[in-house]
């Protein structure tokens, strides 16, 4: 519970943050809400030499409707997502997922960019962004690029960002009036998901289903989606929930129980759509 020594700089702008990142190379880590990074440091699972604090970059905290897309700044807090009227109307799945994160203190501090960049396989927002076919916007020394959510999570707590890149925005196709469901099964009321399901009726038709807690990364339940598209009844399609997944087998839950939960939660999500 006592972190290793580190130095600290506060970035006054995105440019400054990028400069600092380039200057320190791999030794530096960005600090947003600190609610994943600081615990990891206290447990000495992470020992960055430099923390670049981007927590006060207000310009990265916003929700904007941009045509048929919704743009969410990387530093938008979970709590904002929970309560923002644009989110509620255009991408309510995101609010439903945000509402289930930790407790209010966590939701006040934690940010969407931090949650996605941390890439915990059980992160609630990761499931929602994946089901929403979100696109992540990264800025680096050589400019801006877009990374589809499906390509962003590359492994357990690994993402597709380059060392000197910073996540600035998450873009989500607006889905007003489309049905959605977020089902989370956790051991305690305020806890990480053992398994969770985010489901979204897509603007172009069909249903997107994402799973959290079912492998090293959040995943799309492709088998379920395809079965549904082929007209398979929901209950039957749900049986395919764990297909292709490699759920963790640990003290929290066995792989077989997780697979069972995935089926139950997908069934419930389908019923809620």
């Amino acid at each position, binding site marked *: 519970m*006592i972190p290793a020594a580190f130095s600290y700089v506060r970035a006054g702008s995105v440019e400054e943050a990028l400069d600092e990142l380039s200057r320190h190379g791999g030794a530096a880590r960005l600090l947003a809400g600190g609610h994943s990074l600081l615990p990891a440091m206290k447990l000495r699972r992470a020992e960055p030499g430099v923390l670049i604090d981007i927590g006060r970059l207000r310009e990265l905290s916003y929700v904007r409707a941009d045509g048929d897309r919704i743009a969410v700044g990387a530093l938008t807090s979970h709590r904002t997502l929970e309560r923002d009227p644009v989110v509620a109307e255009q991408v309510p799945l995101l609010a439903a997922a945000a509402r289930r994160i930790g407790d209010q203190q966590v939701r006040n501090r934690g940010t969407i960019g931090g949650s996605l960049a941390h890439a915990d396989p059980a992160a609630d927002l990761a499931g929602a962004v994946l089901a929403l076919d979100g696109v992540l916007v990264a800025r680096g020394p050589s400019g801006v690029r877009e990374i589809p959510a499906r390509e962003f999570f590359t492994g357990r707590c690994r993402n597709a960002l380059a060392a000197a890149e910073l996540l600035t925005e998450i873009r989500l196709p607006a889905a007003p009036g489309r049905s959605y469901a977020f089902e989370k099964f956790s051991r305690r009321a*305020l806890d990480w998901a053992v398994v969770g399901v985010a489901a979204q009726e897509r603007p172009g038709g069909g249903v997107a289903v994402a799973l959290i807690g079912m492998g090293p990364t959040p995943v799309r339940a492709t088998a379920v989606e395809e079965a549904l598209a082929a007209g398979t009844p929901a209950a039957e399609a749900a049986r395919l929930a764990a297909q292709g997944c490699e759920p963790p087998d640990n*003290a929290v839950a066995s792989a077989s129980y997780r697979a069972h939960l995935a089926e139950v939660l997908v069934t419930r999500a389908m019923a809620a759509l």
Partner: protein
Amino acid sequence: MIGSAVPRKEDAALLTGRGTFVDDIHRPGLLHMVYVHSTEAHALISGIDAEEARSLPGVLGVWTARDFAGLPPRPSVPGLERGYLAGDKVHYVGEPVAVVVAADRYTAADAARAVRVAYEPLPVMATVADALAPDAVPIFAPLPGNLALEQQVTPDDVTADLEAAPNRLRARLVNQRCAGTPIEPYGVLADWAGAGPTVWATVQAPHRVRAEIAERFGLARHLVRVIAPDVGGAFGVKSSFMPELFLAPELSRRLGRPVKYVETRGEHMVHTYHGRDQVQDVEVGFDAEGRVLALDVTITVNVGGVPDPVGIGLATLTSYMLGGCYRIPKIAARFRSVVTNTTPTASYRGAGRPEASFLIERVVDLVARELGKDPADVRKVNLIQPDEMPYQTPFEGIVYDEADYPAALDLLLGELDYAGLRAEQARRLADPAAPLLGVGLSTFVEMGGFGPTPLFEQFGYLGGWESANVRLQPDGSVIVLVGTAPHGQGHQTALAQIAADQLNVPFEAISVLYGDTAVVQEGTGTMGSRGMPVAGNAVRQAAAEVAAKARTIAAHMLEADADDVVPIGDGFQVNGAPEATVTLAAVAERAFKPHLLPEGTVLGLENTAYFEPKNLSYPSGAHGCVVEIDRDTGRVSILRYVCVDDCGTVINPLTARGQIHGGVAQGIAQALYEKVTFDGDGRPLAASLEDYMVPGPLDLPPYETHHIETKSSFNPLGAKGLGEAGATAAPQAVVNAVVDALAHLGVRDVEMPCTPERVWKVMHDAS
């Protein structure tokens, strides 16, 4: 004041963050101590390289076992002496191997990580089965094998009784290992200035700690001062003699500066001793009505890698309480305490008694199930009746005090609407879409009010009494010094209520102080639900003496006969003469004026009383739990939790409810959430609060609490204690409910914790 729900005196400071815990205390020149803990469960230490650690700026030193060879061992079972740090070998992950002192805690933590310990692995025996296997090697050097203690608690052999019984059944019950997880972990600050140390520590018995420190350092006790400031929960785990209690003063002596040690949460999970961890093999004989005729129990306790003197014998208390609130004529009990490569186990809320209550309450349910009878009915035929009290159990010296067990059960069944619940259960069973419903009962009795002295001496205490000094200040306000050392129980409040009644002074005019050996006369401490039944009576007795003397002085001032003087509002009055009054403040001041007092009056208004209880007390009650089980996921939700408690006299219904809430919460935690686990290599799998499932407020139900007050005749207050009752009653109330919900599937048992996955597997396997 006794019986009124006054808010706690403690709360204003604690709720505004103004409490003083060990880590809040700062001394000039303070140094910080950090352990290097073993990363191996069983290994020889082949070398410790502390060069790099010593060279870090700010590090004052690194010490290993050899450096403390001159210090007599920690309080231990004779023949099983324990040192302070691992010497030649380590016995469990988390065992302290070396200690680092640095100018700040960060440097100390860095230095501890820089110490390199070379281990030569030994075979790891993380379970009792492994430790007792034919090829097991002895873990703890003073012992030739891993069976640390084998004890026949009763001489009875019930084989013939079991054979003669019309029905018999066997069961193996598991009471899993739990961690205390108080919000404040262990902490010690020692400042050896002058002739001896002052030690601030998160302990439950400062005088005992003082005695043990004085003995280790060859000091007279007056030279050692131990202070337990605000203590943020203890639950028994702060009654073990952790090495830091002695290492911090010793290092302060060597370095000539104050030394602080504060455990981190991660350390707490592996270093501070755990509780429970029993496997119970039971055979019970019973008749067609469900009357229990004989009980045979073998308890196997996992005592961890370095046997603790309390932990090694804790199953004695389990054995004593095996009969629960039932008239069981014959009980044969024996236990084995087994050393394994895990963190040691010792006291945890209830310390041995919840394990017994769990056992007998599960057994009664099994008997009911076997006979196809309602568990409530089987309880009724077995309960000891009020006219049988005091009741001599089959165990010598274990005599239950006054209680009405059948009344508690009846009240519970009424509050639950038991018949209604059974009907609802049947309705849901018929509807495959409805979650399953289960009802669990727990009619329990536990042991509180520890003493008396002959018993408590066996745990190493000077006595089983408690002390109180009640002193009137010259303005009529009151200071009470009490020998307990509470850690959340609210003694400032409850003891002030008791004193207020005796002295006839307002509750607000009384302060209760404790926890400092330089302030408080000899005391015993807070454990074993002894606050009200023992300390409460000491306060009552001392206050009564003071009140009597005040009355004599008042009589002198009023020029009346003491027998004619009666207490009124804020003082005294001559009976029948409303104008002849004197205030208590005037009396108190007069007590310090020798020239205005009758010849020979001892100055001052104070008294010190040591109250020795006649025997232990036996808090009891009946708890009921209603659960719902999600057929798809196995998740258990508690719909209702109803408590009927009989703790004798209720001093403060508010704080009494608080004790029940907290105790039941820990009992539910054991039933549904918590378990300390290790892998085959003895590595802890739940060493953080991310993995060790302490439930939060949203996971716990609202509690419905009821009391019946059957006063104990074993002490003048009639109090029995309440601190451990909830934790004793709850686990089996919940588990009985879970099993009840699944009984139609043929399920007999679900091991704790009844996690969704475990319940789902049981359902899955059964159907």
